[in-house]
């Protein structure tokens, strides 16, 4: 029974992730792609040698983009659903739907926004090819650190709640998270590889569109998955059951 519940939530999480991925893909195509094209225009104007195109731009910006964004949605949808199975009933007095949106908001912050503030998304032409190893390591390190600290903060909050009360326990846990993340920001190396004369507005708009995609992805996921989980865990009584309850009521 419990194992089946986990399986059903996992399937719904992956489906909701796919749905949210479609929404994020629309944002990526209309908000993000124009900035990718402008950045590639800058790259082409400043490149000394031109590489042979293995995958054409028109494929990269459509089918390739869709593959990446949808797989990302499904994968994080699955992981979030598993986290949801653990969080359900353990993080406070929330309904299934509210738990889903809360988890989704925390995931947006821990998985994306916190790493983004230290190592923001970069358009093509920004970033030295020789440092890709270092940048990849730092980015994933920041992401893993942020997610683990968010989990630790949640556990800390739960431990403190009986002593301090829910409000102050939450404030203390969030403050502890912020302090440790602040230390990581201060001590991890800075990456700044924006080429000279790269248009600042393109960089800013690219990063805003990348952030918008994630807000849409996780917001969409929270609402979609919350709806599916609520209907699964608290099924609405059918018409026949409602009638029976009405007939059985003393008044």
């Amino acid at each position: 029974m419990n194992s089946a519940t986990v399986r059903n939530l996992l399937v719904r999480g992956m489906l909701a992730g796919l749905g949210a991925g479609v929404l994020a893909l629309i944002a990526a195509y209309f908000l993000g792609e124009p900035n990718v094209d402008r950045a590639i225009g800058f790259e082409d104007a400043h490149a000394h040698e031109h590489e042979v195109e293995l995958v054409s731009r028109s494929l990269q910006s459509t089918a390739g983009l869709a593959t990446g964004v949808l797989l990302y949605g499904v994968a994080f949808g699955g992981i979030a659903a598993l986290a949801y199975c653990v969080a359900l009933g353990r993080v406070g007095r929330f309904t299934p739907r509210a738990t889903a949106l809360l988890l989704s908001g925390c995931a947006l912050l821990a998985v994306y926004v916190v790493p983004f503030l230290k190592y923001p998304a970069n358009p093509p032409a920004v970033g030295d090819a020789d440092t890709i190893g270092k940048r990849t390591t730092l980015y994933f390190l920041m992401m893993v650190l942020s997610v683990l600290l968010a989990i630790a903060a949640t556990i800390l909050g739960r431990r403190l709640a009986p002593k301090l009360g829910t409000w102050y326990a939450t404030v203390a846990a969030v403050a502890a998270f912020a302090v440790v993340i602040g230390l990581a920001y201060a001590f991890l190396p800075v990456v700044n590889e924006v080429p000279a004369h790269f248009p600042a507005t393109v960089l800013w708009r690219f990063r805003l569109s990348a952030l918008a995609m994630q807000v849409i992805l996780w917001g969409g996921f929270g609402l979609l998955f919350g709806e599916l989980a609520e209907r699964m865990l608290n099924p609405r009584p059918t018409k026949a059951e409602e009638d029976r309850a009405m007939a059985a009521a003393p008044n």
Partner: protein
Amino acid sequence: MAQHVAQPTATTPALPATLPLKAIAPWAVFFGILMLVLLYFVGAEQGATAVVSGTGVHEWVHDARHLLGFPCH
């Protein structure tokens, strides 16, 4: 008196019961790893490290990688 049994209504929604961690663990291990492998292929394959040779995977998900915030090249 006996009729006053707590029933979930619109004002007092039913709060969920917790799922035992033992029931979650097998799913979390298997699907968790599968999902992480998917993320690796979207986010990092043929960037810093490569399982498949060439640059086909990298070039195919190129735009998604940039827009999802992963270091690309």
